[in-house]
């Protein structure tokens, strides 16, 4: 069963890939126009949509079979959560594409979904037993709803990114705030790819470096690095032979192995990004830009807004309301200012700000698109940094 479940996830991954390819063809290929001369997309777009739906079906197949195996919803560790987040983005895409039929949206969201699933698979994929406080249906309801909300909000990032790539001139010489911003997003996406490559490469050689160290409770413990240690643990002592000594030692309140991973990600990301720039002699955004030249900016602006309007209530329900119900039952209090809770509140406030700013027409278009990017950054920060780097009550890993 567990194998079947993982196979279904693999199938979903390849369906998303196929969908990406179909959408790419539909965007770059010939256009079909209706009698008013409006571009209505083409059959490749439909093929992309159908494969995306099949991908979602396969991914849900993974989700529910794994649920049956584990006896609890598979959202209880980092792998499961990140993969599920990717799945919810694809689900949100299927819904929003159904409303607006913008093919380029598929071209950008499907790869993000694939990146997330690949990223999640880097973490341990074993089914884990749940400690008592996590054995709650309210926890499952809370996490699932939050992920769906975040998935819908992520689509607004996709649409916002399209808006930026469509409207900002990335060929101009000299760096401006806008070109820097777009390139920074590109660099981050490249870093995720770099991270997936690096961890898989070291994983293929079974790289391990074991440390003895003093943990945050002041006790002797061991920690296992799966990437060469740039940042070592608190008072760490290398136990594995022939491994490099860390460059820097971290205090005990930082999860040093995770920080190390983050450093690797952005470091190799930088190398990969520089390589692309050197080889093509163009900005990464400028390479993608031609794909979006037929997009109506106002349509993607509206898609981006609509995704937030749909996603915000769902996120609020899952990330705050159900979270409070769960916290009241499991931890005796509905709110405790735990970092994870605070960041859910920050996300909520941020999107509230977005909605209020949009009351003013001056904020439509580009400013909104930047805000959608920042919102997604907050969600990802919440997912990765708060979960991994700050050790809290919620930590999944």
């Amino acid at each position, binding site marked *: 069963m567990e194998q079947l479940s993982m196979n279904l996830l693999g199938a979903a991954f390849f369906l998303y890939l196929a969908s990406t390819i179909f959408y790419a063809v539909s965007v770059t290929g010939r256009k079909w126009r209706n009698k*008013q001369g409006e571009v209505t997309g083409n059959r490749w777009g439909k093929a992309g949509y159908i494969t995306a739906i099949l991908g979602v079906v396969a991914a849900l197949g993974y989700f529910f079979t794994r649920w049956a*195996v*584990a*006896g609890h919803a598979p959202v209880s560790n980092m792998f499961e959560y990140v993969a599920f987040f990717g799945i919810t983005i694809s689900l949100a895409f299927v819904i929003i594409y159904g*409303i*607006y039929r913008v093919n380029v949206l598929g071209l950008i969201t499907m790869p993000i979904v694939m990146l997330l699933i690949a990223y999640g698979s880097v973490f*341990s994929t*074993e*089914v*884990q*037993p749940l*400690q*008592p*406080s996590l*054995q*709650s249906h309210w926890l499952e309801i809370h996490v699932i709803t939050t992920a769906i909300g975040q998935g819908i909000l992520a689509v607004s990032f996709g649409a916002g990114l399209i808006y930026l790539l469509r409207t900002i*001139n990335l060929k101009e010489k000299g760096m401006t705030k806008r070109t820097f911003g777009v390139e920074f997003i590109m660099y981050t996406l490249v870093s995720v790819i770099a991270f997936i490559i690096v961890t898989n490469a070291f994983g293929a050689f079974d790289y391990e470096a074991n440390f003895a160290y003093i943990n945050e*409770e002041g006790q002797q413990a061991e920690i296992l690095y799966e990437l060469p240690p740039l940042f070592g643990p608190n008072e760490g002592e290398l136990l594995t032979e022939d491994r490099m000594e860390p460059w820097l030692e971290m*205090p*005990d*309140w930082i999860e040093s192995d995770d920080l190390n991973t983050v450093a690797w990600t952005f470091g190799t990301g930088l190398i990969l990004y520089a390589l692309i720039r050197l080889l093509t002699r163009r900005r990464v955004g400028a390479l993608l830009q031609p794909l979006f030249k037929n997009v109506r*900016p*106002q*349509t993607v602006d*509206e898609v981006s*807004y*609509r995704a937030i*309007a*749909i996603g*915000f*209530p769902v996120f*609020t*329900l899952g990330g*705050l*309301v159900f979270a*409070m119900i769960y916290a*009241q*039952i*499991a931890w*005796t*209090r*509905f709110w*405790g*200012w*735990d*970092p994870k809770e*605070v*960041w859910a*509140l*920050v996300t909520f*406030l*941020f999107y*509230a*700000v977005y909605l*209020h*700013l949009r*009351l*003013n027409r001056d904020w439509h278009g580009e400013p909104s698109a930047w805000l959608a990017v920042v919102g997604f950054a907050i969600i990802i920060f919440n997912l990765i940094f*708060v979960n991994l780097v*700050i050790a809290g009550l919620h930590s999944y890993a």
Partner: protein
Amino acid sequence: MDEIKCECGHLNPYGTEVCGSCGKPLVNSGSDRLLNMRYEGAARRSQTYNKSIIDKIWNFFSSVKVGVTIIVITLLASSLGTLFPQEMFIPPGADPATFYAEEHGALGQVYYSLGLHNLYGSWWYMLLVAALGTSIIIASIDRFFPLYKALKSQRVTRHKSFMKRQRIFGTSRVDNEDTTMAQAQDILKNKRYNVREENGNLLAEKNRWARWGPYVNHIGLIIFLIGASLRFFPGMYLDENVWVREGETVVVPGTSGDYYLENEQFTEEHYDEDDERYEAAMAEAGEGAQFEETFRTDAVLYAPDEEATVGVDQELEEIDRHGIEVNDAFHFDEYAVYQVDRKLDELAEMTFDVEDTETGEVVDSFTVDLNNPDGNYTLENDEVVRIHSYFPNFYIDEEGVPTTESDVPENPAFIFEMENENTGQMEHTFLGIQANYDVSQDEEGNQYAFSMSDFDTNHVAGLTVRKDHTIPFLIAGGGIFLIGLTQGSYWAHRRIWLQRKDGEVWIAAHTNKNWEALKRDIHAITEQTQVTTPQDQTDETHEEDENQQEHIQS
């Protein structure tokens, strides 16, 4: 202040931008810029008065700019508080004055000095939240009444320049205005629009109620914030911890003696190592990793028997029982008792053998309940052992005096007292863990020797007692917030005006969101009637922008 009289004869309150009756723009009337339709051009208090101090405060808080600024500051402050752990999360017993500097260096010191270690309870954070609430209330009132009036008394026929200055606007020549209008009316009705007709003109409107979404959700937020602030009133809220040993009955703290709770048994269960579902994960975690599955306190709830005389050993009457687990609290009356912690295998009883050193025989043994020791134990030979001193958690303080650190029997020690049959003197023996001394005053050795022969342990359950009367407010506020949010987010207020003007059919449309979807509704009209597709006037401006850009570049 003067009212404004429109050319249609309607009297509008001062500050009105668009005539409430015919829709003629009253300010910038010569312009062809798109009308600001946000509050239908109705006069708002904040835009109208700016004299007294009250006006100024009102205007300040009703501004969306100010509101957004307050939210942004709250957002930034909240995230700042997660930089380092808040005071409530630092290890128990740690002194915050030194903890932050030691753990987090200079930055930690600054964090502590600025009071950021207790940010969410600080006066300025609460002030921010209060300002947020004030702003929500004032901004909502400022807009609600004008909007309500404007939307209630809409006329169908609108002024020409009102039509022209809508974002979606078009004119078409048609063969027969009557049939076109009739067709359009049917189409719109099929699309569930409410269609009103006046002098052959149409106003089709849909989902007006969605406009109240923000007001409903703001009310929900206010109720929520009020609910949250009620916590600071006495009696609304209770949060107490209590440790209960197996077999022990304690008064439930915070209930002023109304309830007693007994811990019959505490159970901790672990995941089965052979469970194939988790085998791989357990193997990965390595030796010694703990996989707890359940913590449970089998609790019995008692109340004092009402009929029994007060004061004398009160009779307790069982009223309920429940296995308290994490995620499954014991609810009774207005209280809830939660499983939060445990101490396993705490010493509970010790059994001592008493040996008569003269005969070399063990006279007897006795068992001391470490949490509730008796004063004397009578042995089989009718001799009595008295507990002279008991130190549940023994240590020797700075002055060299034996004392106890707490009432918890973590390191119990005793001084036993017995009478020496021969001398009639009292002799003393000190007995602790790995300690056994004769501590009698006289020179002679003690007649009786003590040794620990057995001990027994039990588990202690850590429970939290809660009462929270603010929750109903929070549920109401949260519920109303979600209803309003859904109402405002998942429906959009759409209006389409169709008018006969100068032998043409004019169409104009407005929505507060999702224009593409509105255009699709209009598309149905243009497809089936002679009305041509109206323009989205923002499209042109965008294309103009683009053209300009290209000019600059070339």
